[in-house]
């Protein structure tokens, strides 16, 4: 697949390029700040010239704040087909939520990984694939950070322990088949759990991408 990279630290930028290229992906461009990132998208003449996935660092020049995320939100709105994988040093879920909130039903996948995850090559490459396929991946550390928080009066409270477990795996980007393997469950059981999660969260077939919406619920109000 075709990948774009936006990362200001050159070591990481080149490393990510090398890892993705080594896995047989085509690196369209690798830029070092949010303005260049926007420019690449405004330059692209057609959807064919756009990458399938962009890997974006949250904190980048020019502002060295959450410039990368701001650019990602804009790209999500203007190019809903592009998968966006955001890298961050930050454990909170605000960034992931903001990105998912922008266009919950867009075709492009969404990922939120801690930066060091890049060094676990297999996991990282799987995440890139998932995002390229339109899935959602949230870093498992971010998820366990969330799990450590007390559950309160949200629709989530009505989920059973098993259903929470399944939803957690959905959030980390696993497909139903992978969840079956992970939890040693049969295919109908997993489907039943997923269906029950959707029902309890009030997500109907016409709500759009229900997996994304379920994860959005999972990430908070």
């Amino acid at each position: 697949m075709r990948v774009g990279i936006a990362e200001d630290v050159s070591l990481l930028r080149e490393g990510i390029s090398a890892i993705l290229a080594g896995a047989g992906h085509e690196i369209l461009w690798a830029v070092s700040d949010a303005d260049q990132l926007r420019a690449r998208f405004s330059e692209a003449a057609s959807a064919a010239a756009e990458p399938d996935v962009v890997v974006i660092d949250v904190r980048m020049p020019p502002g060295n704040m959450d410039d990368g995320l701001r650019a990602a939100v804009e790209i999500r709105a203007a190019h809903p087909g592009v998968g966006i994988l955001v890298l961050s040093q930050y454990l909170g879920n605000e960034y992931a939520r903001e990105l998912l909130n922008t266009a919950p039903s867009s075709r492009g996948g969404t990922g939120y990984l801690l930066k060091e995850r890049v060094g676990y090559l297999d996991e990282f490459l799987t995440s890139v694939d998932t995002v390229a396929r339109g899935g959602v991946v949230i870093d498992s550390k971010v998820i366990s950070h969330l799990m450590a928080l007390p559950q309160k009066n949200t629709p989530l409270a009505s989920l059973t322990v098993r259903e929470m477990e399944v939803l957690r795996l959905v959030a980390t980007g696993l497909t139903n088949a992978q969840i079956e393997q992970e939890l040693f469950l049969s295919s109908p059981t997993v489907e039943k759990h997923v269906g029950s999660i959707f029902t309890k969260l009030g997500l109907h077939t016409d709500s759009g991408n229900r997996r994304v919406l379920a994860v959005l619920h999972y990430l908070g109000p």
Partner: protein
Amino acid sequence: MALWVTVVCMRALAGTIDVVKSDDPFAALRVPPWRFLFTVWPWSSIFYLVCGVVLAFPTVFTIIVFPLLPGWAWALSKIERHRVRSLRLPVIPEPAGARLDWSRSGIGLWLRTPRTWREITNTVLLPIFALVSSPLLLVGLTFLGALFASPIMSALGNPFRIGDWQADDTGSLILLIAIGILLLIAFGYVCALLSGAQAIVTRVLLSDRRSALKRQLGLLADTNVSLIDAFELERQRIERDLHDGPQQHLAGAVMLLGMGKKELEDIHARTGVELQGPLNRVRSAQEQISHSLDTLRSAVTGLRPRVLTELGLVPALEELGKTAPLWVQVTSNLKQRMPAAVEASLYSVATEFLANTIKHAAATKVLINVEKTESGIRYALCDDGTGGADASAGTGLLGIQHRVSLLRGTTLLTSPLSGSTRLEISIPAPAHNGYDA
């Protein structure tokens, strides 16, 4: 020579220009002697004393014709409040609401206020100061005048003489002028000292103490707010340094180790060489670094929530609510970010409130409302607990009050026994707040 003259002229000019309004009546005494004559200080001090002597005449007259004294004291005080301006001191503010009305009760009231007697004291002190300064001025100015006039007088055939010695040649004339300059400097300092002392007495007697205290308090609050701002900036700087330095490098190291591991695996697959040992080592190194990144992250979050820095108060409060073991609802009409110090203070007020609620109130729910109003920011926190919070007990609530008062805000705590606790805070808009947003 020409250069020297230019330099002296430039310095003289600079000396007269760089006189700034200060609050220090003895500012003149801090000027070094070689610059003293090029500043306005000697001249303004002499002028101040001369005015004092002139004003002493009618004052002595009214002291003798006693019934005129209160009226003159009133008028003189008005002059005195402005006279200190000649010493580059700010005008002494007049106490508010002190208009003299000429009815019988008005005069009676006027005579009973301490202000009147302070003004009369100041008026009586004026001739005493004049008594000291008039001989000084008389002798000093005459003697200095004679010294500086000596070349002219010598040319007119009436040279300066002390006993048998008389200054008729150029050498002794230059000597006289030099002595004159040194004496003028000394005379200037004495005048500055005397006028400074008089200005202090005038200021103590005529100023409105309350407004002076208020001004000082305002200054103090400004200092404190800039102190919080400085702390805030420092925290942000540390957080940024950790992010841009160690965190990036460690993430890079994890990545490089991951790439190395992949290369080792490839070698193993190609050649069949046993590499399990090195692979395990690389994997544990990765784990170690990941672990230190986790530690670093939690330290950074403790410093200052990233969300607060980047997304602002409301998202930060929402996140805070999520980490709390009770249901927190945040409502707000804020559309813009607030100054960093305000955001940080309001955020820490919320953490304090939540901590108190969790510890004491057995509450299940907290409502937080941030509202921007015409006059500033209204911040209300409310729980459904058992109440009974006492603002004077424990440091937590005192800490809240302190933080809010540093922003010149007000705190209102209502916490009836077995009722909900409600904390309301109003912070004036930045324009009334002493610092820029």
